[in-house]
């Protein structure tokens, strides 16, 4: 019998009744991980997982996460467990401390099964650039359509029901967009709500730690466990913890939701648009006030270049410590500069190098005004305008992607089209303003799932989950996985 296609809540009931044990769940997850055909794993921690699961004897009734297996993106530090960020330059790096989110999940007696693949150093959105090659979409036996990234392995593992939840990171949309290709709930919090201590930094003004689940309720449970002030993270929020389960089932009556017309106009796919419109009808039928409003198109067009310039500039600086000296494979050389040059030349893939050069060029004294500072100003204008919207509306609602099936090879050619600039990249708004942002499945296209996204005001993560729960209830796309859909 398979258990891991169940939600956290369902597994907790079975653990309480002793119908299953943490050890049985860990064994099943490890067996599935070993047979994973989608290249979702960097490391499977069999010995540690089985030892820890064996030690868990009495289920804690009020701890919904007790004994639940999970996996973690490989850019989050795990003490004494290989953590590579899917990069050759860290291929043998073993952290000497746990990230705060790992510490919290250990305290909750969750069982770490493995570390998952990502686009190298979390820079990328395709799930194709990690040092182990392409991570595939479990919904696609032909292996031609992407699972997206950068949190590709964490998404694929939950979609393939290897585990009921996974940790990821999100700098532009790296949880919320793959969640769409995997038919999952994907969430990033208000910036500062979940500690980033132990996350390998990519662009700290945009970076978030978040997660994938297969239900909204499971997500609220996880947020309750992971939120909280952490003095080890300089951006950590004080005094903003909530019980995210308390109002979860309060419905959407009177909630004000808006949809940006320009985002809808940038999507041509009828299946996506029909499902999205149906979901709006459902929200309205439950009492939500949903309005289609206009948002300045020039600001939406500016999202992608703004993201590229800021994230590349921050990344160039943050990754200067990857030099092959303190850790990582060391290159040959007669001077320390040659050692670093050879280590970094071999250690980074082409994509990463290109991004570093873009970032460095943007920071040149003579280019800063027209590139880096201009991008930061665009970010300011976008955030100001979104905050104006939030004076009238509680939630911004949008489709996550322009189509459910996105080919790994031969994607969108026109990088200046609205489909590329807006439909495929608008989720970075959530990172610019640090807003809580949640993707959840709203439809299927010939066997491929797709999500929509709910973004709320900063600090109002709980309300985003409340609206997500109501939407999930009306649509019925709950606990999707390949085992349930493909069978």
């Amino acid at each position, binding site marked *: 019998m398979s258990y891991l296609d169940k939600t956290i809540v369902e597994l907790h009931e079975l653990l309480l009744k002793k119908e299953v044990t943490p050890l049985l769940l860990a064994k099943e997850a490890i067996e599935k991980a070993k047979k994973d055909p989608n290249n979702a794993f960097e490391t499977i921690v069999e010995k540690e997982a089985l030892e820890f699961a064996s030690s868990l004897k009495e289920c804690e009734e009020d701890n919904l996460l007790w004994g639940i297996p999970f996996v973690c993106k490989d850019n989050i530090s795990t003490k004494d467990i290989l953590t590579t960020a899917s990069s050759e330059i860290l291929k043998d790096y073993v952290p000497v401390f746990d990230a705060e989110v790992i510490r919290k999940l250990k305290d909750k007696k969750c069982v770490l099964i493995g570390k998952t693949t990502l686009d190298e150093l979390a820079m990328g959105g395709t799930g194709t650039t990690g040092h182990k090659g392409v991570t595939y979409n479990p919904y696609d036996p032909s292996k031609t359509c992407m699972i997206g990234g950068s949190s590709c392995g964490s998404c694929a593992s939950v979609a393939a029901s290897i585990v009921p939840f996974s940790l990821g990171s999100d700098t532009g949309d790296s949880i919320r967009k793959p969640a769409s290709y995997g038919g999952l709930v994907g969430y990033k919090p208000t910036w500062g709500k979940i500690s980033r201590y132990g996350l390998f930094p990519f662009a700290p003004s945009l970076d978030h730690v978040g997660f994938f689940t297969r239900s909204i309720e499971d997500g609220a449970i996880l947020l309750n466990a992971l939120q909280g002030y952490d003095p080890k993270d300089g951006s950590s929020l004080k005094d903003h913890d909530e019980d995210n389960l308390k109002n979860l089932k309060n419905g959407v009556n009177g909630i004000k939701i808006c949809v940006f017309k320009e985002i809808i106009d940038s999507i041509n796919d009828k299946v996506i648009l029909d499902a999205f419109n149906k979901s709006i009808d459902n929200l309205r039928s439950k009492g939500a006030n949903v309005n289609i409003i206009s948002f300045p198109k020039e600001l939406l067009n*500016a999202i992608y*270049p703004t993201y590229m310039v800021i994230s590349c500039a921050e990344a160039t600086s943050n990754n200067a410590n990857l030099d092959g000296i303190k850790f990582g494979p060391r290159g040959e050389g007669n001077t320390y500069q040659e050692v670093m040059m050879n280590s970094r030349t071999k250690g980074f893939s082409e994509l990463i190098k290109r991004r570093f050069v*873009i970032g460095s060029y943007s920071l040149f004294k*003579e280019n800063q005004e027209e590139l880096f500072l201009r991008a930061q*100003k665009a970010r300011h204008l976008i955030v*100001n305008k979104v905050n104006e919207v939030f004076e009238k509306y509680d939630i911004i609602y949008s489709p996550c992607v322009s189509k459910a099936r996105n080919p790994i090879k031969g994607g969108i050619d026109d990088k200046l089209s609205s489909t590329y600039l807006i439909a495929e990249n608008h989720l970075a708004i959530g990172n610019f303003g640090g807003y809580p942002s949640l993707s959840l499945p709203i439809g299927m296209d010939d066997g491929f799932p797709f999500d929509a996204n709910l973004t709320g005001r900063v600090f109002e993560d709980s309300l985003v989950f409340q609206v997500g729960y109501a939407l999930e209830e009306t649509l019925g796309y709950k606990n999707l996985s390949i085992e349930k859909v493909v069978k």
Partner: protein
Amino acid sequence: MKEVTLELLKQCANNLLFDMDQEQYQTLLEEFATLFKQMELIGKIEDIDSVTPLTFPYPCQSYLREDIEGETLTLEETLKNAKEVEDNQIKLPKVVL
């Protein structure tokens, strides 16, 4: 702005202490051309200079921790991932020959 040329890109990469092959520099040159076209979209925003650069998502203070000793690494932990270690120090090629 500095004109983007293959030579400049190579110089920039070398300053960052890595190198690429010629084909990769050519790809990067083309990527810059696209990025500049996309950046022109930002230039078209009329009031772009009416605001200050935004460095954090929302107004927040940087919380400095209390000046008390926290967790520290042991010597063994500090050197654990280094490839060449001698006399409890990370070994590098000689700077002064």
